[in-house]
């Protein structure tokens, strides 16, 4: 095989047995890799009704055929499992260097099953695979864990691990790699913790075989030259990271503010990119082989909020900043460092805290239950409760369940701004209607990464569409969801892919991406086949959700989004007209009126007989 190694490692943590398996070449092509291979394996091997934190759930780390190749931003991996937060799919993506190093071990995918009786970690050094004891690491933070593991394996190795939050089965715990990058969303860290798997450490020297290395090199050189020219003209992502975004979303009135009570934040100038760059940035930091470098290596010199680390990115600022009513970027940055060290999803903890703050504000949540004051804008409360959540101490034990279970406990689930129990990211869909349809129909719940229509609705990439209109949104969301499934499965980052690997039209036609895939794999994809593979992945994920008990009724949004008009700003008066968009979306997807794929659609996608 080219592009793919065609091999995966299966680790039975209950017995400690490790086996190497070959991947069928037709499955490899039909499901692309990463996210696609993972859902195929999960669907085939795991009862969709499984309790997510039981040994019967499986945890999959998957790279794609472009991970570890010269393809710019070919540095991603996916973590796929059944989510303990949502009961739906977890499908979480991260970059950094770990994914490339993992691919260079000579294996495309690691699958973990069962549960170790004692804490362990996996050490993979090329084809040497070893399950090692990790009792000495249990309880350690992410930086402490990485330090010890590099000492006892290889200083050149790369580490993905959980922090105290994952160990304590916090439902919003992520998996950190390279210390600061996160496969954050929907509780993948808790699944890893439930398996007593503290870390995965990789060191690889096997290069990825390419079908057409010269053609690959030429195309990558062209793309890099284009990116370089654009960066030279002025790259917002290079200069400010994604932190430049709050002021943009605020301007169109969709910056989540005080638990989505409004979309404009009076303190936005204090939490936006130029403040980060001028005050706290040490230097931009790139994932492996990335010509953009949107990562932020930062240091805050402050008696209360001082520290050094990476971040914050936009989503973190939207959740822990404006979402919680905080206009103090030093405090948001400190909160970000803590989440990285303890292994928490910054979006979900930020929005869960915001939910709790609103419940206190509205008199639903008694302050004595919290054990301290908890008001919008209270930075010290945010930082204190992040620590308590990771360790499940006091009220942190309730926050550790995520906002839906928290709000439900007090009989007011409407205060949880979630879809399928996953906290919203940083775009209020009342002012970006396509994002509303995306949150409602994504297979992991409210994720922007499942088909980020903010590109055209907010950023004008590849071309601008009216964010307040529902016209064309069902068609665009279908295309974006399918195209993003391809990007994820291929092992690429969306930041560069949307602009440089698709034609510059909003329909996202994958001309260059198809070339890249063929130069890597030699599989002879057409553009249509590649998008159909994305659609196949999306539909198989949907089938997993349906088997897990989800129905079309779950393709919905919180009452606030559907019935409470945005109170002010450019989106004033708007709600999400989901009822207008959803039937058309189902029709375009080839699903029946209950959101179930028709037999004809499954036949078209070769998904029959599963």
């Amino acid at each position, binding site marked *: 095989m080219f592009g793919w190694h065609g091999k995966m490692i299966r680790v039975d943590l209950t017995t400690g047995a490790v086996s190497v398996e070959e991947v069928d070449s037709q499955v490899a092509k039909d499901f692309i890799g990463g996210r696609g291979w993972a859902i195929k394996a999960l669907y085939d091997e795991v009862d969709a009704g499984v309790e997510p934190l039981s040994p019967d759930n499986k945890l999959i780390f998957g790279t794609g055929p472009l991970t570890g190749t010269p393809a710019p931003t070919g540095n991603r991996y996916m973590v796929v499992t059944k989510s303990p937060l949502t009961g739906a799919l977890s499908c979480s993506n991260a970059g950094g260097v770990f994914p490339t190093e993992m691919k260079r071990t000579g294996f495309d995918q690691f699958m973990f099953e069962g549960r170790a009786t004692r804490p362990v970690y996996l050490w993979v050094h090329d084809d040497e695979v070893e399950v090692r004891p990790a009792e000495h690491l249990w309880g350690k933070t992410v930086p402490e864990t990485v330090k010890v593991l590099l000492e006892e394996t290889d200083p050149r190795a790369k580490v993905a691990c959980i922090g105290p939050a994952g160990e304590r089965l916090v439902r919003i715990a992520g998996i950190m790699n390279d210390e600061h990058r996160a496969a954050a969303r929907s509780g993948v860290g808790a699944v890893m913790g439930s398996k007593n798997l503290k870390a995965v450490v990789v060191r690889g020297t096997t290069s990825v075989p390419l079908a057409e290395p010269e053609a690959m090199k030429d195309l990558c050189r062209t793309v890099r030259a284009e990116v370089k020219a654009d960066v030279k003209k002025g790259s917002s992502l290079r200069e400010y990271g994604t932190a430049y975004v709050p*002021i*943009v979303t605020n301007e169109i009135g969709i910056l989540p503010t005080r638990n989505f009570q409004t979309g404009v934040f009076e303190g936005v100038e204090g939490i936006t990119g130029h403040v980060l760059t001028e005050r706290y940035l040490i230097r931009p930091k790139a994932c492996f082989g990335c010509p953009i470098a949107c990562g932020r290596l930062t240091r805050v010199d402050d008696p209360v909020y001082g520290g050094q680390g990476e971040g914050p990115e936009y989503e973190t600022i939207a959740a822990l900043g404006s979402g919680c009513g905080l206009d103090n970027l030093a405090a948001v940055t400190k909160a970000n460092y803590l989440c990285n060290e303890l292994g928490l999803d910054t979006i979900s903890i930020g929005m869960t805290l915001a939910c709790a703050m609103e419940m206190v504000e509205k008199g639903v949540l008694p302050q004595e239950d919290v054990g301290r004051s908890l008001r919008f804008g209270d930075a010290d409360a945010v930082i204190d409760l992040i620590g308590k959540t990771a360790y499940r101490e006091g009220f942190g034990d309730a926050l550790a369940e995520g906002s839906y279970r928290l709000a439900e406990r007090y009989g007011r689930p409407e205060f949880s701004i979630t879809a399928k129990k996953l906290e919203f990211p940083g775009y209020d869909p009342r002012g970006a209607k396509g994002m509303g349809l995306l949150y409602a129909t994504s297979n992991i719940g409210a994720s922007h990464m499942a088909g980020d229509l903010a590109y055209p609705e907010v950023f*004008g990439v590849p071309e601008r569409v009216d964010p307040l209109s529902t016209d064309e949104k069902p068609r665009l969301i279908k295309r974006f969801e399918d195209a993003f499934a391809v990007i994820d499965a291929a092992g690429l980052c969306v*930041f560069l892919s949307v602009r440089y690997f698709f034609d510059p039209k909003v329909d996202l036609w994958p001309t260059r991406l198809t070339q890249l895939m063929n130069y890597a794999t030699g599989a002879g994809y057409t553009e249509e086949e590649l998008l159909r593979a994305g659609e196949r992945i999306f539909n198989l994920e949907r089938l997993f959700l349906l088997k897990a008990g989800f129905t079309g009724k779950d393709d919905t949004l919180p009452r606030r989004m559907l019935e409470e008009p945005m109170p002010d700003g*450019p989106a004033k008066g708007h709600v999400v007209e989901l009822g207008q968009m959803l039937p058309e979306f189902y029709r375009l997807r080839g699903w029946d009126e209950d959101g179930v794929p028709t037999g004809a659609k499954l036949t078209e996608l070769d998904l029959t007989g599963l």
Partner: protein
Amino acid sequence: MDIQLKLFATYRRYLPPESQGSVCDLGVPAGTRVADLLAEFGIPADGSVILVNGHGAGPERSLDSGDVVAVFPSMAGG
């Protein structure tokens, strides 16, 4: 008439020195178009997202007193 100009991300470099944060208050002649503003400050129209009062607008848009014009580059460089 008085308007407000906001320049975000890398376009901050086009802000006049008296600006506060990302914002500059301007007095402009009646009938001023977005394109006139862009030209005055040397802001490229190509590859830019233009908002007037938070809603998408083209360079030919005529401005009214009190309008807020925000401009930023569509995501070049990724």
